[in-house]
């Protein structure tokens, strides 16, 4: 069965969506990703959707769900590389993904994750998490 690869980079997981998402693929990704976060104790998830040209309300909601689930498992999610047309579509659909962090590209997304983590460690006390 078709799957979207999840790459591990240090404490972070990198998901690059390079095919058109259909609903079943999205659900599989959701399963795989939560499973993977739990197993690797990842601290952040980076979802790159720069090749995604079409989103519907289901995929939009799924992105929101993944972010919420990751947060429950103590990992920040950053969605990066959204195309202008996709952003406009999501806003018109009324899905502004309130709980999801966003960045323009993978590089900025990564520094956002690192920044967020450093901030959290400062609050919690170093290395305690």
């Amino acid at each position: 069965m078709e799957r979207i690869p999840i790459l591990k980079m240090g404490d972070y997981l990198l998901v690059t969506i390079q095919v058109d998402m259909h609903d079943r693929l999205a659900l599989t990704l959701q399963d795989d990703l939560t499973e993977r976060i739990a197993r690797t104790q990842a601290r952040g998830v980076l979802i790159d959707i720069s090749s995604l040209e079409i989103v519907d309300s289901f995929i939009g909601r799924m992105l929101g769900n993944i972010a919420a689930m990751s947060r429950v498992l103590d990992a920040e999610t950053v969605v990066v590389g959204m195309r202008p047309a996709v952003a406009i579509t999501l806003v018109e659909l009324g899905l502004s993904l309130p709980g999801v962090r966003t960045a323009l590209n993978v590089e900025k997304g990564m520094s956002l994750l690192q920044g967020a983590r450093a901030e959290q460690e400062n609050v919690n006390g170093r290395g305690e998490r």
Partner: protein
Amino acid sequence: MKPKEEKSRIPDMIARRESDLLADWTREQLAATTLRSDLMRESELREQSRQFLNLMIRAASQQLSLNDINAPAWEETREFLSSISRSRAHQGFTPSEIATFVLSLKQPLFTMMRQELEGDPRKLADEMWVATTLLDKLGLFTTEEYQKGREEVIRRQQQELLELSTPVVVLWEGVLALPLIGTLDSARTQVVMESLLQKIVETGAGIAIIDITGVPTVDTLVAQHLLKTVSAARLMGADCIISGIRPQIAQTIVHLGVNLTDVITKSSLADAFAVALRRAKLVITRSENHG
């Protein structure tokens, strides 16, 4: 009163005495006070009159009733009139001057009809009614076309304004500004949103300042459009600051119950820029050797 069953004799009459009628009509038009010799040459006028009369004869002979100028038989006449209407509007004629072109045919036509139908006053009255209705309709048609031409111009200008009035400027590395002038409707928001997002991709900017100093009023709809733009930019990974909120607008926003709490708002572009610089970890310092 309208003779429906009986075919009107007007088309035959006009066809038979076309040259007389044309001569009378042209003389009439040239003598009229509404003649604009400054805008149009005499030969041109003569040519247009001849064409119109020809088309009218052709259309009228195809049609039993002369009342319906929307019928397919009148198609060519309508096209001709609308082209005249547009070209004259372009030359600077007023709508009434353009309608007079058609309406001035009445007098020569009636004179001719009086001569032709001298022995039959009933028929004359009927035919006059038919002719006058027809010419009135054609005259009104030119006015409608004039109006349509005008509306096209307005629409085109609106479109041009739309494109002109949404520049996205780079204030600093990673900081964009979007000074909005004029009312925001949904069509305009679309253009604004698209150009902003495009610029974010091009420059990789992390902060966009939307300045609404030039937006005259902010109602719920405009606020909603602004929030949409902010959300879309956020999805692309850029934060938005709304600046240039005048005191009155602040009051209306609160009275309308619009929720702007998720957005950073500043009263002036300078304040917003300062925030943007702070976010980008940039500092402006005054040079020391100034005194």
